[in-house]
């Protein structure tokens, strides 16, 4: 009996060993050799095998650019929000006054089940977009840049008209940035009277309100919708998923299938940046999007075989934002003094040497598009170069006093700048620690307080609990997006149906505590929220003088000190695939699936 048990144990061990060795070789060769593309979706940690292949579901097993397609793909242009690469649409024509866009679909594109992609698919997808709170297909009365009509011109052409009562320069972008779902699979998600309901929702009164509620409620049904199987018009289609990985295989019906290199795509999940770093260091990934990494990790990643790092423009900057409802930050001289005291070069060197470049000044615009928008005027802005003497002048102008080498408030009470940062944001925390060191060295008492996590940080900063904290600004390329982070809700301005309103400092979401009107040297009295609102409908030429006024306002008034401008860092590997976008390419904000579907990525020979 004992021998039998021993034999059974040995056999089990042998079986396990055999199984394990099978997993490391064996079937893996069936992955298509060099045809397997391994990647990670940095915007979405965790893969849920039970989630539907539904692009509207945040956890859905639809991967943008791979098996989830949009009408077109937005280029990472410095200033023009209406530049695209083809997707489901082959071409588009935007009316000169932005009042309509006519979209022509790829003539030969088919869904993975063999059915052609038609204008009806697009119409249904636009209907779905209305339920999801999409910008061009918003049902909020008076929303800027909302569509007024959707017209199927022919089997491959759709025309969408903008409601010109509150137009937006981003209308075409809103239309082309629409997911397209197959009507023969998704048709049932919208009720037969949906378009009548939509018409009713545009009115006023109780009926319109009810129609809007019904459309919004449909959104939840659509998010939960689970097609029996993935039907894709993209270069790949989902085969299966488990909690750690998802496998997609090539869609032979895709219009550009002949130029799609990988046979299979494997998505890996992750629970934290550390895993992405490990994958990159071991050369496992063919592509990963932007992931912050400390310098030592970045060096290891660079040393991995075939590692290829592509950098480009990322329309985000980070600033040290002040709560002007608190003293002494209500005094512009204090803010300017701090701007002179902080050596941004040093901060970035410590905190984000790979992920950012020190801001050339505070303009509210990322330095790359700032050159386009402001031209020579950019050089005329005060650069706030590190200058202790100027800082002292500003502090004195603010009435602060220096006692025993330490700055105090005007009445002699101690002054301490408390900066908050969310736990886990290592670059922000390092930056604040560095700033603290610099300030302390020059007589400004400072401290860094780490907040439990990002949700709490955002709630508390919005509640006006902090003196100062880091805040993302300069979101481009649309001019309105750039300035709404500075002169939008966080500074008290709201845009309701095209009407700009301002809440008093510390009230109505105005946690930055900015005044409604600011007297700016060389510009005069400015209502920055009003100006920002105008950017919504302005074309590039009309936007330029407004951008200049706002840049001067931000530069002189300093609601934030712009610290560094983000760099879009994409990690690729040339070991298995080549043809990656060039440095500074306008493709860098798009998923690698778009690079593949455009036929750029090739197998390494």
């Amino acid at each position, binding site marked *: 009996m004992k021998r039998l048990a021993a034999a059974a144990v040995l056999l089990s061990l042998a079986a396990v060993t055999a199984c394990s060795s099978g997993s490391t070789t064996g079937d893996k060769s069936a992955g298509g050799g060099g045809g397997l593309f391994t990647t990670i979706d940095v915007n979405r940690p965790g893969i849920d095998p039970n989630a539907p292949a539904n692009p509207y579901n945040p956890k859905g097993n639809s991967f943008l650019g791979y098996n989830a397609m949009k009408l077109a793909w937005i280029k990472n242009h410095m200033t023009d929000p209406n530049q695209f690469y083809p997707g489901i649409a082959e071409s588009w024509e935007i009316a000169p006054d932005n009042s309509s866009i006519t979209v022509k679909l790829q003539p030969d594109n088919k869904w993975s089940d063999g059915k052609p992609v038609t204008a009806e698919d697009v119409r249904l997808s636009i209907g779905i977009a209305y339920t999801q709170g999409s910008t061009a297909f918003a049902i909020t009365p008076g929303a800027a840049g909302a569509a007024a009509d959707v017209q199927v011109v022919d089997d491959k052409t759709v025309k969408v008209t903008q409601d010109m009562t509150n137009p937006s320069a981003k209308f075409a972008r*809103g239309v082309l940035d629409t997911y397209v779902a197959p009507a023969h699979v998704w048709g049932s998600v919208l009720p037969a009277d949906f378009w009548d309901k939509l018409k009713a929702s545009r009115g006023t009164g109780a009926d319109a309100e009810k129609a809007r509620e019904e459309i919004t409620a449909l959104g939840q049904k659509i998010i939960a919708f689970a097609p029996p199987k993935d039907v894709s018009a993209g270069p790949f289609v989902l085969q299966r998923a488990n909690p750690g990985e998802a496998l997609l295989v090539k869609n032979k019906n895709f219009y550009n299938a002949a130029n799609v290199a990988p046979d299979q795509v494997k998505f890996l999940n992750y629970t934290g940046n550390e895993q992405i770093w490990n994958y990159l260091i071991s050369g496992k990934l063919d592509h990963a999007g932007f992931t912050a990494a400390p310098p030592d990790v970045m060096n290891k990643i660079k040393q991995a075989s075939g590692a290829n790092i592509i950098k480009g423009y990322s329309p985000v900057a980070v600033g040290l934002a002040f709560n002007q409802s608190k003293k002494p930050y209500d005094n512009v001289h204090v803010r300017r003094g701090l701007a002179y005291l902080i050596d941004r070069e040093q901060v970035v060197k410590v905190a984000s040497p790979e992920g950012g470049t020190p801001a050339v000044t505070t303009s509210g615009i990322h330095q790359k598009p700032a050159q386009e928008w402001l031209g020579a005027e950019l050089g005329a802005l005060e650069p706030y170069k590190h200058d202790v003497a100027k800082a002292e002048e500003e502090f004195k102008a603010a009435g602060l006093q220096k006692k025993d080498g330490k700055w105090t408030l005007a009445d002699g009470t101690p002054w301490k700048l408390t900066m908050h940062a969310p736990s886990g944001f290592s670059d922000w925390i390092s930056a604040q620690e560095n700033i603290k060191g610099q300030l302390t060295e020059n007589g400004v008492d400072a401290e860094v307080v780490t907040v439990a996590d990002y949700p709490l940080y955002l709630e508390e900063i919005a509640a006006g609990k902090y003196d100062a904290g880091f805040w993302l600004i300069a979101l481009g390329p649309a001019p309105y997006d750039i300035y709404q982070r500075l002169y939008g809700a966080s500074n008290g301005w709201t845009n309701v149906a095209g009407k700009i309103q301002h809440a008093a400092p510390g009230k109505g979401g105005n946690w930055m505590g900015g005044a409604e009107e600011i007297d700016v040297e060389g510009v005069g009295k400015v209502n920055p929220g009003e100006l920002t609102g105008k950017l919504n409908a302005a074309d590039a030429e009309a936007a330029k003088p407004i951008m200049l006024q706002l840049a001067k306002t931000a530069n002189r008034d300093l609601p934030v000190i712009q610290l560094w401008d983000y760099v879009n860092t994409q990690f690729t590997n040339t070991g298995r695939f080549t043809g990656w976008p060039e440095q500074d390419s306008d493709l860098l904000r798009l998923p690698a699936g778009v690079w593949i579907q455009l036929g750029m990525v090739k197998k390494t020979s």
Partner: protein
Amino acid sequence: MTVIARRLAGHLARGIAMVLVVATISFFIIRNIPGDPIAARYQKLLEQGMSPEAAERATAVMYGFLPSGTLGEQYADYMTGLFRFDLGVSVTNPGTPVTAVLGEAAKWTVLPVLAGTLLSFLVGVIMGVYAAVKRSGVLGDLLAISGSLLHGVPQYVLALLMGAIFTTLIPILPQGGTADILFEPGFNAGYIGSLIEHATLPVVTYALASYGGWILAMKSSVVTVLGDDFILAAELRGMKRSIIFRYVARNAILPLFTILALSLGLLFGGAIFIEKIFNYPGLGFLLIESVVNRDYALMGGAFLLITAAIVVANILADLFYTVIDPRVRSGEEAAT
């Protein structure tokens, strides 16, 4: 009514009351956790370079899945749902019932933790007996020291160490996930091998982290029993050593069975750090994510599942003890 049936009825009543109390407490604690998860998600997407409108679209849908109504109404809904085993809908997995999300994650926690617990129990008990019998020898000392060391090292340190060794320095084991997706799921050697390969690090780490406790407890228990009069009497009667060993083992292992039954209650929540570090998508990982995302329904469901498992394990431990220890049973019968 038998003693066991009576005990079971009493335990069940207390257990249900306990679960309801914990559900109520955790409901109010969870609902009062500060933080704006949707704003956080939006800002995070912006930082990663997503356009504001795309980030808005990606997060706007989550609002529809947030609980609505007053706290009292939410509580009433929650408790009513609880009696129908409806724990609500997750915000981060919109459209998917919390029970389904928990069910999916639970299987990836229960199997590795169960395997790790049983492995560490088996090895720990055997080594514990050996360490007690040979307690004056070098090997006995070494075993006891190994137990103390491993018992003292926090689980997450051990996990980081194992991960660094076997996925980076000597990269022979996978860095995460449950199985290689290239294998067709099913009863085939490749898939099963891949499952085992991916579970190796979590299981071994869990086993190593628990082993110290078992060896120390078993050693202590054996040493106590070895000093009992009945062992001395058996030795004086000239009984065979194998029979004496059986007496020792049976008596010494009793308290460990209770601990084992209780630790089985932690199956659902006992590997939070290990899962997070090894990117193993079980309940522990889900719990962390639900807290970060302020997914109230999911958090509540996970806490409830962990509570229920511990209550059930307590009941089973108690009943099990009644069965395996005649002294407890006879004591109960005498009392009735």
